[in-house]
């Protein structure tokens, strides 16, 4: 075995409490194999990786014990926990390399990428000459298929895109020919199309060099694409290990079963509505444009426009859920906010029923807002930390004269909380006391408090774990059915789209490139971009 972890324990001390981040986990990785550690946030998968690298923050480390036996090619078998810091530095980067989740911040901004890779090479191959070392850097960059490596080698990280930076990270890791590559959520921050290329690249490199990969992720789609074997982690414990196929189709542990069942692909598909009033759509966008000016030069004149939304025509029939899909930067969030006039449209019309929202004066708009609401992505920042939940829920009602007096409004608030399956005593608490999923429920309750007919849901589940996501989605569909809501569901997750939406629109570079019934879009995409997008989505074989 290349790596065998035995009874690894990593405990932290935090404000007088012990946090068992990793609690007696054992697993093995063979040469040339890809082992995936899967788990929800806080399950300890990243800490396990850092434990192997011995890169844990020392200040509040309480206990770090167990064996991490590592046997590099043609080398002695050593226990990494017993190595001195100097010996460990030889292993780090040389025998075990690591890449991280955030390609944006993981490279030093003040050195060129060439310098950073060269540093790693010189560190582990001190005997190479300057020219040989550079050659190695160039080889590594070519191996990760960075376009135009001859000039890119002198670029600074900020001049590269996210995907390119992740390639550079991989090149840096591969330049020293490690036996084991630890990849900590390397594709989570990337778009699906880029993710697909990076995953393919990692597989390629693995086949060529016979290195082993410890891949950490929360995404079962990615797991099914890349893993040979899988370990499932829950609250610091490794609850189940097995071959990928077995874990996904025949999980034995109850936690794994629940996790697999919560995947949007596995959620029982609902009956799609077909009986929408196509003639009289609730929302009708015509030639909507939202541009942001780019100013330059001596007098800050507008020299160019960023066309975030560039002429969109869209209709959302009453009672329908329309999914708006696109990669980052496609303008989908801007479009969502533009419909509500949270961002002022540059041109075009937004008709709500018969009212053109873009024509409304500020005071009229304020009154009109009770008809349309929004739910946000980030559960942390979407609730005012200074107000109690009661304050958050009743203030909008008061402004729009819903309820006779405060008692009545509180009664309505209680009822709303009940509808989003929250306890009644929630009312007098403050946002920081709740978990991400709970906050998202409160955010939904706030949106519902004005009894709107239309809600924009902006990536509302992408910051949540799959199990929580499943609950929220179920609840939302329930509410839609009860209240006859019309939803614009903005997301990048195709699995969620399939589960939740009636129709889907695909956005690319500020334009809607394709729209139609969700089933058609997902299974028979017509547009080239849509085809690429759908093909890139890692899916769990059902």
């Amino acid at each position, binding site marked *: 075995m290349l790596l065998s972890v035995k009874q690894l324990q990593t405990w932290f001390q935090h404000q007088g409490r012990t946090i068992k981040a990793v609690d007696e986990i054992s697993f093995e990785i063979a040469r040339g194999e890809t082992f995936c550690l899967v788990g929800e946030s806080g399950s300890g998968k990243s800490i396990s990786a850092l434990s192997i*690298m011995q890169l844990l923050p020392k*200040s509040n480390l309480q206990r770090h014990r167990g064996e991490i036996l590592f046997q590099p090619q043609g080398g002695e078998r050593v226990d990494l926990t017993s190595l001195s810091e100097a010996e460990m530095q030889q292993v*780090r*980067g040389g025998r075990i390399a690591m890449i*991280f989740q955030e390609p944006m*911040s993981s490279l*030093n901004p003040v*050195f060129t990428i060439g310098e950073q890779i060269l540093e*790693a090479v010189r560190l582990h191959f001190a005997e190479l000459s300057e020219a040989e070392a550079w050659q190695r850097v160039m080889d590594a960059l070519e191996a990760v298929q960075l376009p135009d490596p001859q000039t890119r080698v002198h670029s*600074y990280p900020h001049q590269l895109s996210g995907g390119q930076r992740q390639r550079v990270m991989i090149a840096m890791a591969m330049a020293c020919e490690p036996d084991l590559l630890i990849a900590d959520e390397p594709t989570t921050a990337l778009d699906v199309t880029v993710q697909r290329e990076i995953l393919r690249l990692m597989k390629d490199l693995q086949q060529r060099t016979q290195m082993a990969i410890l891949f950490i992720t929360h995404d079962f789609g990615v797991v099914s694409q890349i893993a040979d074997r899988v370990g499932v982690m829950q609250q610091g414990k490794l609850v189940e290990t097995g071959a990928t196929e077995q874990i996904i189709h025949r999980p034995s542990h109850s936690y794994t079963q629940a996790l697999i069942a919560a995947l949007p692909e596995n959620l029982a598909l609902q009956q799609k509505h077909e009986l929408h009033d196509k003639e009289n759509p609730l929302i009708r966008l015509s030639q909507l444009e939202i541009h942001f000016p780019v100013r330059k030069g001596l007098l800050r004149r507008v020299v160019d426009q960023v066309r975030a939304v560039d002429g969109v025509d869209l209709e959302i029939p009453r009672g329908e859920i329309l999914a708006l899909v696109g990669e980052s930067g496609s303008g989908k969030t801007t479009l969502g906010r533009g419909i509500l006039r949270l961002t002022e449209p540059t041109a075009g019309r937004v008709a709500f029923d018969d009212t053109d929202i873009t024509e409304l004066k500020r005071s009229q708009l304020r009154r009109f807002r009770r008809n349309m609401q929004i739910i946000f992505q980030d559960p942390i920042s979407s609730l005012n930390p200074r107000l109690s939940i009661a304050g958050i829920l009743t203030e909008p009602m008061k402004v729009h004269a819903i309820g006779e007096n405060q008692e009545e409004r509180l009664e309505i608030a209680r009822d709303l909380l009940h509808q989003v399956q929250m306890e009644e005593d929630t009312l007098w608490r403050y946002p920081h006391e709740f978990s991400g999923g709970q906050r998202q429920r409160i955010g939904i309750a706030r949106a519902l408090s004005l009894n709107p007919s239309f809600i924009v849901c902006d990536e509302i589940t992408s910051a949540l774990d799959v199990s929580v996501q499943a609950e929220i989605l179920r609840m939302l569909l329930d509410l839609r059915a009860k209240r006859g809501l019309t939803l614009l569901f903005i997301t990048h997750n195709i699995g969620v789209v399939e589960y939740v939406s009636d129709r889907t629109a695909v956005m690319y570079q500020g334009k809607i490139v394709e729209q139609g019934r969700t089933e058609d879009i997902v299974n028979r995409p017509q547009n080239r971009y849509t085809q690429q997008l759908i093909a890139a989505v890692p899916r769990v074989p059902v």
Partner: protein
Amino acid sequence: MLTYLLRRLLLMLPTLLGITLVVFVVMASSPGGISAKSLVEGQNLDPEAKQEIEAYYNRLYGLDNPPWMQYLRWLNNVSPAGFTFDEENNLSGFSFSKGSDLGRSFRYGRPVTDLLAERVPITVLLNVLSIPVVYLLALLVGVRAAVERGRSFDVSSGMVMLALWSVPTMLAGVLLIGFFANDQYWHWFPTAGLSDRQVLDQVFMPHWSSLWDLGLLFLMLVLSTALFLFLANMGGKMIRMALLALCWFALGLAMVQQLPESGQSVSLWILIPTLFALLAAWLASTDYRLMRQLGFVVTGVLVGGLLSVHWMQGEWLRGFLVDRLWHLVLPVVCLSYGGFAGLAKLTRTSVLENLLSDYARTARAKGLAESSVLWKHVFRNSLLPLITVAASLLPSLLAGSVIVESIFSIEGMGKLAVEAVQTRDRELVLSITLIGGMLTLLGYLLADILYALADPRVSYE
């Protein structure tokens, strides 16, 4: 980049205009304002003479004009292109090359330009000497505090820095002069000014009567510094501590001995050497190599210097340079400690933020040793925010000069500023405002340019 520079320079104009306008409005709207009357007030003259002087001032400075006229006139005089006037003060034309004229000071009766040319270099000298001291020490302490996050060095240095930052400059100045420049205590430094009169006709460099003395001084300094540096790196913590403590105990004894008889007391004989010894022992015990070495080197220089002075036989002339430096010691200390404390805290924050960053983790995962991570990767990034701070350090140093120059009777721009506002010297106040503002704005601009050079992410296109 060029457009950016041009834009910034153009934007400075309205700001400078605003600054002088604010100050002028303050002066003009004050009770009494800036009239010839307020200038003559308090002088013991008979009414007729008073009136004549008033009329003279009015003619000379146009003080009987309405305030807005006065300001416009001043502006016209200062700007390099503007209207020209003939002998009779009548408009004679418009010129693009008339040159700018800051006017004459009411009080000194001399052109403001001359006054500034005399005073500004002195203030600049003070600040130029302070800035490197401030940065060097601040980086030394700040980096260490960040590395030792949460441990005793961090906590104690944090407290000490905050305390230092809270010490009012005038208190420090008064105490320093009182104890180290006054013949009641240690008369080591001069109390006032920037040079002794007698030195003005001496040579520039110091001069020894015998070559032997110079050789001795050189030899002693080198030998003792080398010896102490060697000691600093030698193993054996206990030996190091004992040695340094002993040295400083002796230095403390020598210090008490320097006091005039009346000032010596038994408690002082015990207190000062003990305090010194404890401080030295702590310094010798620290694991922070750079700081330990610094402590030992300073001790070495002190010991070497003192011994050689003790053994010297001949006479020596101080010379201009040494005299100037000798005068500058206390003012520079006074001017630097506050900035040092503030900057050390900023350095700590900045280094800490970068130590916890993702790219530092990448560097560690590459197999770099912690010290390389710190000095090669983290340090350079941590300096970036400090560049911006350097710009804001300049105005605060200028403000500090006002106090320091007043305390140490140094004829610099700060002291001139105090005198100018106290005597309601319109031309001088406005000119100092203009120059001070210009220096500050140029400081900001320089910092921004430096930032762009140091950080590849920033480009001013």
